[in-house]
């Protein structure tokens, strides 16, 4: 064990280390790996030389700079210490780090887009998004094509800054994507993280939030649409350690294949010092076929008697016959009624995506997956 070793308590206890050797190769029996399809993840359990099989496109509005820096840059590792072997291997072996800086007080009206278009190959990735004090920005990480990726994304949200990070996993069918998204919020920071899982064979995201100053708020939204053979796993950890902060989590999954699989782990920890915390988490899963399986594990650990509010809810179910009956009783054909219900189910996640082109593209993708476009949504010429 090394000096960097860092235990954060129980039961949302997190062992973190920068040394990959501190993490054994997963066997599938570990709590953190037991839901995952290890066969497909195995290439990520050993170090490799990143093949960088990506085309990287960016859209950078005024107020944003992008530079490539080394692993030894001072900001690298300030929000994230790896919590599993894949993350540790990626952090230790990645060639370059993409540093995105949003200038202090910059108010971006256009989104920052970081688009990775993959080709088959093994890849490490590391991003640091440094949203300086009182800035306001939306960053879209858009993942397309096919690749096997282990990535770390660090997000620093400065004093009073407002950052939205949308991570879109719109991969082709064979992609494998394992990533840790670690945010550290300074005083009065506002952070919105939206994960949209549509494509890929395996997507396993680890969004975490830590608070470095009081008054900060985090909203974590997730949309997963798992088709045949897709595994989409979201492992959240929100660590409340300072007073007057809030977290709000809404994750929704639709599973429409017999072998579709989603996993949602919602760990929220409220430490003794985190008085006047508000937290709420919701996970809802809609199973459209018999064989599909959604695991949902909320875990709220409260260590102070002085919280402002805390709650969680989790539910997994099938189409509501009464909703379909009601829509059909107004003449709407059954398949269209189903599409309306699914779109409606996702609405309170996807409506947080305020970039119009992205919102429309994602809705169109979801509609196409559901087999059409609801007639009511069409505009006439």
């Amino acid at each position, binding site marked *: 064990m090394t000096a960097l070793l860092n235990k954060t308590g129980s039961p949302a206890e997190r062992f973190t280390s920068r040394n990959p050797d501190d993490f054994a190769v997963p066997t599938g029996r570990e709590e953190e790996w037991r839901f995952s399809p290890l066969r497909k993840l195995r290439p990520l359990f050993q170090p490799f030389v990143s093949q960088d099989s990506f085309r990287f496109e960016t859209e950078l509005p005024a107020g944003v700079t992008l530079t490539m820096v080394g692993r030894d840059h001072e900001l690298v590792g300030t929000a994230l210490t790896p919590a599993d072997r894949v993350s540790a291997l990626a952090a230790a072996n990645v060639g370059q780090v993409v540093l995105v800086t949003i200038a202090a007080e910059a108010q971006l009206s256009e989104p920052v887009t970081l688009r990775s278009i993959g080709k088959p190959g093994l890849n490490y990735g590391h991003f640091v998004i440094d949203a300086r004090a009182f800035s306001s920005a939306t960053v879209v990480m858009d993942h397309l094509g096919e690749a096997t990726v282990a990535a770390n994304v660090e997000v620093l949200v400065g004093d009073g800054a407002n950052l939205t990070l949308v991570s879109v996993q719109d991969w082709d069918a064979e992609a494998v994507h394992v990533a840790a998204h670690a945010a550290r919020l300074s005083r009065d920071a506002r952070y919105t993280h939206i994960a949209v899982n549509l494509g890929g064979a395996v997507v396993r995201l680890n969004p975490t939030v830590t608070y470095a100053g009081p008054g900060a708020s985090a909203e974590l939204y997730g949309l997963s649409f798992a088709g045949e053979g897709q595994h989409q796993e979201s492992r959240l950890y929100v660590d409340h350690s300072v007073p007057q902060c809030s977290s709000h989590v809404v994750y929704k999954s639709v599973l429409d294949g017999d072998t579709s699989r989603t996993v949602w782990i919602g760990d929220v920890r409220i430490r003794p010092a985190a008085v006047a915390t508000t937290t709420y988490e919701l996970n809802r899963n809609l199973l459209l076929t018999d064989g599909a399986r959604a695991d949902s594990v909320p875990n709220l650990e409260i260590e102070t008697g002085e919280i402002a509010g805390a709650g969680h809810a989790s539910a997994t179910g099938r189409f509501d016959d009464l909703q379909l*009956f009601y829509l059909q009783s107004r003449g709407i054909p059954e398949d269209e009624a189903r599409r309306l219900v699914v779109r409606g189910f996702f609405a309170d996640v996807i409506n947080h995506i305020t970039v119009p082109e992205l919102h429309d593209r994602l809705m169109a993708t979801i509609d196409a997956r559901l087999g059409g476009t609801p007639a009511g949504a069409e505009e006439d010429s």
Partner: protein
Amino acid sequence: MSKLEIRDLHVAVDDTPILKGVDLTVESGQTHAIMGPNGSGKSTLAYSIAGHPKYTVTSGQVLLDGQNVLEMAVDERARAGLFLAMQYPVEVPGVSVSNFLRTAATAVRGEAPKLRTWVKEVNTAMTELEMDKAFAERNVNEGFSGGEKKRHEILQMALLKPKIAILDETDSGLDVDALRVVSEGVNRVRETGIGTLLITHYTRILRYIKPDFVHVFFDGRIVESGGAELANELEAHGYARYGANEPAAVQ
């Protein structure tokens, strides 16, 4: 001219017989009131005609202009011209009223209504029902008050223009003002010449919507039929002589 014929209809819920032989014919221009105590099977009749999955027709027929309604899917029944204003409208999270109405109108009319005339049509219908414009952006029935739900049902009836409308306790849960607004909304659609089957427990809605025929419903069948005067009878004496100790007038 349209005609809804219900012939010797028997319906069960979870193998329990609820409707035990209902015969009734509703034609365009007619308003039939069905009155009966709680649990007599009024909603079962309404839902069975609409095709609710919970209700199993064990025998009998329902015909709309000679066509077998019971063989049609739920949405086909609506497109054929049947409309049910539900006693308990269903919440559909995340689906806005405006999207829902337009999708329904597109389905029933067979083509998407032209956007400009459609907006005007919806606004007019909402104004007539004294509904705020912001209502259209809310999610279908989510967080609606009882009165809002009923106005929303009648708004749909006005926009979908059915041949035969079944109104299941549209009056329940409405205060006097809302009852007047909703009844006037129903009357505007009735004046277009549709057939109406008005299901109610209480007589008070009949002050606003005048029935041509009144049927007393009890234990899964019609036990007495007459004209509007039968409602006055029920108003005075309740359902006692049919064996149910319930008043039909609001106390």
